[in-house]
């Protein structure tokens, strides 16, 4: 190992040091919550610079540190996406931390460690490195979910999330150990080579099954979704935004990496499982959302459904499928954070903007924000020309070309159902008179709404750069799979 090897991990190193500094800073500078966000943003800026430096400088793809990590374009794509998402969530969080009841410094430090864990996940090519990254992210998420420690709902959410998350980690580890037992290695490439010669090894299959179950918990896919509605509803809204985007995107990064790099030749064995999970997620997520009156809970179910759509890309095992996953994660992140930002914007109480009728008549009091919300919802529903359409277009096409026409039928039908509950919000905003909750005067939250609006429209109308980026990012993995 040399210093050059360590350079590959520069963003992670920056973040871990920065996270520690955020913890120490109040000792020197006092606990001014308002300043914390600024320092946190600075840290993210440095991390972004580091990530770009690695992306530009690394002779891509290079294996670093005994092949545990790789700084390939796939990892870089996700790392940059993570940084952007966390930056947006940092800005969203500033508002709720400003009243000083909860310490901001620890909050942002946890956020930095979570980001660090996500980056390790994105670049891990070895089940151990992926696992430690995942655990780092998970532990930080458990604590963040319970950050409203004076609210029973929040602590309850954290506790449920923690207990169930630990259970799922156990399942995940058990799966990994069975895979190790069968393949003699935890490195994805070695697994891929070993797997190719091991048709009919049932211990391996069980290992993959359990690994898949653990990952499905992290992406909140049915039937491992039970924690989602409670945790999303109970956690502070910026943390919910974090859980439903950053955490989920990171889980999809490793989902795609493990299945495309390591287990692609086992596809005939696991496809039935993943197909079932995808179908169940789309059906249960969308149908259960229809009758929800709490917006956070409705969006929680909708995020379960989105996990189902994205799984189609993993299932397809094709270039276009993997590209679809990347694109979908990108467009989903913006539309979703935008939606959560809108929920925050309509703050009335501690948990605000939560009921559908909080949106009543928003069209009159805040036309721009109502319009933005419509765009986000259309994007989540996959209607052109918003970005969500491009994502769904790739995923559904991948499913059909891989021979899963029945899943594509379910997917398209269920996205029709999803418009049903998304439109409840549109109806509330445009067609109902009522006192909409006041739009809070937080500049940061408003800024995020506008950023997400612009991103959702731009990525939908001018998707070329995104598609090219995704195509470049998947190249090393697809080459590996076709070898």
């Amino acid at each position, binding site marked *: 190992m040399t210093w050059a090897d360590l350079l590959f991990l520069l963003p992670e190193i920056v973040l871990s040091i920065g996270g520690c500094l955020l913890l120490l800073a109040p000792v020197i500078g006092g606990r001014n919550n308002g300043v914390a966000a600024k320092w946190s943003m600075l840290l993210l800026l440095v991390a972004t610079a580091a990530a770009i430096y690695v992306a530009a400088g690394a002779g891509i793809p290079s294996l670093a540190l005994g092949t545990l990590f790789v700084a390939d374009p796939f990892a870089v794509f996700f790392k940059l996406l993570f940084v952007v998402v966390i930056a947006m969530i940092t800005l969203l969080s500033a508002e709720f931390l400003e009243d000083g009841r909860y310490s901001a410094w620890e909050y942002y430090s*946890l956020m930095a460690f979570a980001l660090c864990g996500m980056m390790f996940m994105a670049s891990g090519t070895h089940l151990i490195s992926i696992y430690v990254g995942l655990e780092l992210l998970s532990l930080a998420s458990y604590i963040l979910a319970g950050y409203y420690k004076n609210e029973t709902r929040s602590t309850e959410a954290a506790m449920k999330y923690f207990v169930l998350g630990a259970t799922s980690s156990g399942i995940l580890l058990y799966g990994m150990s069975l895979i190790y037992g069968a393949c003699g290695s935890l490195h994805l490439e070695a697994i891929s080579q070993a797997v190719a010669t091991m048709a009919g090894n049932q211990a391996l299959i069980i290992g993959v099954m359990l690994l898949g179950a653990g990952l499905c918990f992290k992406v909140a896919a049915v039937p491992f979704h039970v924690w989602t509605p409670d945790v999303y509803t109970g956690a502070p809204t910026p943390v919910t935004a974090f859980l439903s985007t950053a955490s989920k995107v990171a889980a999809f990064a490793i989902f795609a990496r493990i299945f495309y790099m390591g287990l692609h030749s086992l596809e005939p064995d696991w496809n039935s499982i993943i197909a079932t999970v995808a179908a169940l997620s789309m059906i249960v997520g969308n149908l259960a959302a229809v009758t929800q009156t709490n917006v956070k809970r409705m969006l929680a179910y909708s995020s379960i459904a989105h996990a189902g759509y994205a799984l189609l890309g993993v299932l397809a095992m094709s270039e276009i499928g993997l590209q679809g996953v990347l694109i979908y994660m990108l467009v989903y992140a913006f539309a979703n954070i935008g939606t959560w930002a809108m929920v925050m914007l309509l703050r009335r109480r501690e948990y605000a903007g939560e009921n559908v009728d909080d949106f009543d008549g928003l069209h009159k009091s805040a036309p721009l924000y109502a319009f933005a919300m419509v765009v986000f919802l259309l994007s989540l529903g996959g209607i052109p020309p918003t970005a969500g359409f491009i994502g769904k277009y790739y995923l559904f096409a991948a499913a059909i070309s891989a021979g899963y026409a029945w899943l594509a039928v379910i997917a398209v039908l269920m996205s029709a159902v999803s418009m049903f509950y998304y439109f409840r919000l549109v109806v509330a905003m445009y067609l109902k008179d009522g006192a909409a909750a006041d739009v809070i005067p937080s500049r940061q939250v408003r800024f995020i709404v506008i950023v997400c609006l612009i991103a959702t429209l731009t990525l939908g109308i001018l998707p070329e750069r995104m598609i090219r980026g995704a195509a470049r990012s998947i190249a090393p993995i697809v080459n590996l799979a076709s070898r």
Partner: protein
Amino acid sequence: MTDPLMLTGVSLALFVIVGAIAVASSILVVSMRNPVHSALFLLLTFLCVAILFVSMGAEFVGAVQVLVYAGGIMVLFLFVVMLINVKALPKEKVFTATSMMGVLMGVLLFIILAIILASGTWAPAVNAPENLRTAVVVKTTPVVDAGGATIQTETVTRDVVGNAEAVGMALYRDYLVPFEVASLFLLVAMVGAIVIGKRELDASEEEAIPEFIAKKVSDEDRLKEVTGA
């Protein structure tokens, strides 16, 4: 058909017996009402697992298991149990409908996994136990090439080393970065404990003080309460 990993004779008997004790005591961990009893059964589980490690040829890991878990963590557990004055858990049925469902689920899963395993081959593991005693050693030697420049050549060998050394090599060289990430993980856990556990100074402050301190319970009474003697 002889599998190099197949356990036979004494080692098989040892595995079965120790394994059974481990399973039984871990069930008792969750079904005991007195936390101290639970903790003691947990200790037994750890010890059994340590024996299994040793019997598989991983003496070092077995020793660490005893030292860290049985020695360190268990003591900490007992300490906490004593300190926060948890008496017995409320008396309620251990075998509730939920736990019965759990048992059923476990049995069902066991049966189905067994069916799956039976339907295919259970190929021998690629990894032999010797691996626990080997480590990849990279030696760098400077060589002068034809042009007179010095270049480094690397020779990679798999040497038989001690068990402890193999673990050390794996942990502090091959898996150094994940190891370091694990330290971050502990830091996060600590921050979390403080953030969630810390209370603002308000009316609820008094509740935070353990009962026996507030009530000035004598140590003898306290011990009696906890052990139930």
